[in-house]
C-alpha cells in the first residue's frame, strides 16, 4: 500500500475523504444546478431595450465618396481604412443611377440578432441609450454576431486588425474624435457627409428599407441643381449591395 496519506484531520476526516467529498459535492452541485436551470426555472427572457437613435440614409443623394467610411474608422481607431468602417458604402463603378449605390448602415434593430448571438455579452445594448454596441474587451472573436446580422453585407464587422467584432455605436465611443458622440451627441458620418445624405433620428424607423432609406433632398437646394427631389418615377430597387456590373 503506497498510499501514505491516511492522516486524519482535526475533525477526524482524512484529507483523502475530504477531497473526495469536495469533488463529489462539486459534481453534484453543477449537475444539480443544471437540472434546476433546465427544468425548474422558466426560460429567462431578456427584453432588450430599443435604441434611442438611428441612422437614416438617402442613397439617391449619396456621392459614394466614402468620406463617412474614412471618418468612421479614423474617429474610432485613428486610422483610415474603409474595411474598418461601421458604415459600408458599396458602389458599382459601372452601375447606373440610382441603383449603383448602397449605403449599408447599422439599423440598430429593435430585436437585434447580433446581440442575441453574442455568447459573452460583448455585443450588447448600451444600458443608458439602448444603442447596440460592442465591448471589444469582452469579444472572444467567435463572429457569431457578424453572421447573425440579417443584412448583406453584415452591419457587424470583424475588425481583423484589432481582433474584435465592431458595429456602429452612433459614435458613443470615439477616442480619436473631440466631439461628444452617441445618442445625445454627434455622429461623425452625419457630420462629414458632404451631401447630408446621412441623418440621425431618435424615432424608431419603419422596419423595412423604406424606413431607413429616406429622401433627404430638400427641394430648394437640390432642385436648383436639377437633381431629382422626388423618388417618384425613379426605379429604386431594394437596397442591396451592388455587384460589379458584369454583363
Amino acid at each position, binding site marked *: 500500500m503506497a*498510499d501514505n496519506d491516511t492522516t486524519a484531520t482535526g475533525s477526524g476526516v482524512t*484529507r483523502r475523504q475530504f477531497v473526495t467529498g469536495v469533488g*463529489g459535492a*462539486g*459534481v453534484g452541485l453543477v*449537475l444539480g444546478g443544471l437540472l434546476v436551470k433546465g427544468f425548474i426555472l422558466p426560460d429567462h427572457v431578456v427584453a432588450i431595450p430599443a435604441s434611442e437613435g438611428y441612422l437614416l440614409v438617402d442613397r439617391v443623394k449619396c456621392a459614394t465618396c466614402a468620406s463617412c467610411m474614412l471618418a468612421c474608422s479614423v474617429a474610432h481607431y485613428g486610422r483610415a481604412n474603409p474595411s474598418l468602417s461601421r458604415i459600408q458604402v458599396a458602389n458599382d463603378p459601372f452601375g447606373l443611377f440610382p441603383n449603383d449605390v448602397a449605403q449599408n448602415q447599422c439599423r440598430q434593430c429593435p430585436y437585434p440578432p447580433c446581440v442575441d448571438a453574442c455568447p459573452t*455579452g460583448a455585443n450588447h445594448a448600451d444600458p443608458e441609450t439602448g444603442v447596440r454596441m460592442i465591448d471589444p474587451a469582452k469579444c*472572444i472573436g467567435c463572429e457569431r454576431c457578424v453572421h447573425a446580422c440579417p443584412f448583406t453585407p453584415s452591419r457587424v464587422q470583424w475588425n481583423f486588425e484589432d481582433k474584435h467584432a465592431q458595429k456602429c455605436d452612433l459614435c458613443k465611443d470615439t477616442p480619436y474624435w473631440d466631439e461628444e458622440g452617441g445618442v445625445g451627441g454627434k455622429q461623425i458620418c452625419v457630420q462629414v457627409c458632404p451631401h447630408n445624405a446621412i441623418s440621425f433620428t431618435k424615432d424608431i424607423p419603419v422596419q423595412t428599407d423604406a424606413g431607413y432609406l429616406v429622401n433627404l433632398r430638400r427641394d430648394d437646394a437640390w432642385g436648383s441643381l436639377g437633381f431629382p427631389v422626388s423618388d417618384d418615377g425613379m426605379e429604386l430597387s431594394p437596397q442591396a449591395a451592388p455587384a460589379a456590373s458584369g454583363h
Partner: protein
Amino acid sequence: MAETLWFDSATWLVWVSPFLGVLAAGLSRRRDPVIEGDRILRHDVPARITHWTHGIGTMFLLISGIALGLFFTPALVSGGQGIWTWMNVHFAFVVVFLFGTFYYGTNTLLATKRFREHLPTRNAVDYTKRHYGLLLGFKKLTFPPEAKYFESEKMAYILALASTVVIILTGLLKVAAHAVDIPAGVMAVTTPLHDIATVAMLAFFLAHVFFAAVLPMSWPVLLSMFTGYVSKEHAEHEHAGWMAELEGREITDSAG
C-alpha cells in the same frame, strides 16, 4: 449546427470537469515507485492518466488556441464555421485538460512529497550544466546523480506550473463570461494574460516534447509513461540519485 458553441451551450461541463478531477483523485489509490526485479515502477496508473489527459488536453488547447488566437497571431482559421469548429475543439479539450489537471493537482495536495520531487533543488544549476554539457560533448564533465526528475525538468516545471495556473484562472474567467457579466476591464486584462500564458505554455510544451520524446535518450522514460516501468539499468545511469533513494542509500556524486 453551424453556430453552436459548446462553450455557450455546455458550459456546465467546464465546471463539472475540475470536480471530477478532484473526485477521481479522492478515489484513486496511488503506488509509490518501487524496484520490481530488473525494472522499476516509475509511474502508477493515476500518474499516467493525469499526465496524458493534461498533456493531450494541453496539446489540443495550444493548437486550437493558437489557431484562434486573438492577440498574438493572426487567426489561422478562416471566419465563420472554421472558428466555431475550432472553438468547440478548444472546449472539448478544456474539459479533458481540466479533468487531468485537477486530478493531478489534487493528487499532489494529497501527497506533497510528489510535489516536492518536482521542485528544483540547490543542485539545479550545477546538475543541469553537467547533464547537458556532457551531452554536448564536454568530456571532462561527469553525469550528475539526477533524482526521479532531472533538475532541468524541475525548473521547467515551475514555468509550466505558473503558466497553467494563469491559464486556468483566466480561462475559467473567460468561460464565466459566457454566463455572467464580467466587467470589461477585467476581460481586457484576462484575455491578454491568457494569451501570454499560452506562449509560456507553448515554450514549455515544445521543450518538454523535445527532451522527453524526441531525444532518443529519453525514450525509455517515454515508454514508462505508457507502461509505468523503466529498466533498472536505465535508472541507474540516468537517475542515480533516484536509485539511491529507492535503495535507501546515500547519493554519491562522482563529481563531488
